[in-house]
């Protein structure tokens, strides 16, 4: 599936991603009100990945609903990503999205927006309170997206599971910085950003592996998945599905279709009948 924050500005983009082989798309993270996000540069390419600090730009839930309505006319599976600074904000947006999406993903892990994302998601008490509030207000499954940059991801995920979360999504980009030597200043407008791509895959795989030991709900793996083999590695660690973000840049928009074919090819050559036979096999 498509990870949040990539090619999900409007219904048309997400439709294009679905037609490129994605099984589902996650919307960009939406909040109560319009938000411009951080000033450019918001994107920097580095040696082993990319750094971004978009800063949760979104037109606000009331405006974004029109995109979701448009998308709902099609047959794709849509997961609505929600951010907020407290239970009330999360719940209001989630409630408004509920009718138009197949599931919700709560953003507890954006590393570059003050007062949101990771700043809330590193505290199991907040995660539990917000998750439970959203679960009680909506009818669709609720996924919780966590960061690997916390003391103990398993305890936070467990708090989410106990609060009623239906799946855990791990991981988000990792807090990082790049400084230009000539200008002698951080490049990103926000100075701090989130690092993604191939370099963070082992960190994501380790997080999923740890979560698998502690949870009974499904895990969705994210972080550096570029090929079918990367996806299989996440699945062996315990993921039931994976999300793709940066690889849309490194391999193009058809990456979804290509990864699916690579998974099938690997399964055939290893005599695997069903992908579910692979989940958590590395344990």
């Amino acid at each position: 599936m498509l990870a949040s924050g990539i090619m999900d500005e409007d219904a048309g983009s997400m439709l294009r991603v679905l037609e490129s082989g994605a099984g589902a798309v996650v919307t960009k993270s939406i909040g109560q009100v319009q938000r411009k996000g951080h000033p450019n540069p918001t994107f920097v390419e580095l040696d082993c990945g990319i750094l971004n600090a978009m800063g949760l730009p979104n037109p606000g839930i009331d405006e974004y609903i029109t995109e979701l309505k448009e998308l709902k006319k099609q047959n794709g599976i849509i997961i609505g990503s929600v951010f907020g600074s407290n239970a009330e904000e999360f719940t209001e947006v989630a409630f408004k999205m509920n009718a138009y999406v197949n599931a919700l993903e709560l953003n507890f892990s954006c590393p570059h927006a003050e007062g949101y994302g990771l700043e809330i998601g590193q505290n199991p008490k907040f995660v539990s309170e917000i998750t439970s509030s959203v679960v009680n207000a909506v009818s669709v499954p609720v996924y919780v997206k966590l960061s690997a940059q916390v003391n103990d991801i398993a305890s936070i995920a467990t708090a989410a599971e106990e609060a009623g979360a239906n799946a855990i999504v791990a991981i988000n980009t990792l807090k990082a910085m790049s400084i230009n030597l000539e200008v002698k200043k951080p490049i990103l407008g926000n100075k701090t950003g989130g690092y993604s791509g191939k370099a963070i895959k082992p960190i994501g795989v380790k997080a999923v592996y740890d979560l698998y030991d502690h949870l009974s709900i499904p895990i969705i793996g994210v972080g550096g998945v570029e090929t079918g083999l990367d996806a299989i590695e996440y699945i062996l660690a315990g993921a039931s599905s994976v999300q793709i973000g940066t690889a849309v840049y490194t391999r193009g928009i058809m990456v979804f279709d290509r990864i699916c074919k690579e998974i099938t090819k690997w399964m055939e050559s290893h005599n695997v009948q069903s992908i579910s036979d692979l989940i958590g096999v590395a344990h």
Partner: protein
Amino acid sequence: MMDKIITSKIIKDTIENECVKTIMFNHAEPIEPGQFYMIWIPGIDEIPMSVSVIQQKKKGITFRTVGKATKALFQKTKNDIIGIRGPYGNGFSLKGEKILFVAGGTGIAMIAPAVEQAIKKNKVVDVILGAKTKKDLFFINRLKQTKATMHLSTDDGSIGFKGFATEKANELLLTNSFDAVYTCGPELMMKKLYQICLKSNIIFEASLERYMKCGVGLCGQCVVGKGIRVCVEGPVFSKSMLKDIPDFGVFNRDASGKKQLL
């Protein structure tokens, strides 16, 4: 990799008119007219800019002061540092043997290297430089040095044809047999030209401008139509591609992604 920011000292800056400036920098990688760079103004912003001067080892951008970023860039002079990534996107195809270029306002900046390229390819070229008034025009002398037939057009008639560039274009299209029209300028002007060119088989390409963030097709900020990324699939679009872009001449999106009518 072309997507990494390369910092470069400004080697020359030229004031073109009251609000328009050209900045030159060392950049050896080839670029086609219509393609663009993401220009980093350290501490201020990063913005997409079409190439306006193409030399083998040096490239240039020409811009009007319209916002915070271009105002800051306008202040930059020789030896100041800017960051460059790119080139990005697709340029003009320059198909056809008898070509009409229509540039409106700051669109002149990206049309100028396209005219020069077309002349180099031995095409027969007419170019309309349009603006609100005489003092908004630039690159007149530069283009006079080419073999292109120049037509100036101002809304107030302070120089050349009095009226919109589209009216001048319509007049030329009726009296000549062009096989291609390439345009860059205000979107409503380009939309009008597009509608004129829809009536015939003439080749038509227009360069669209949208708010951009990543510039490489990842963030989705600049999408039009059904997930068409202006930074990757554009910024120059052909007539057949524009048919699939209902946004064209109707709306764009601000930094938050909210639609704004043009």
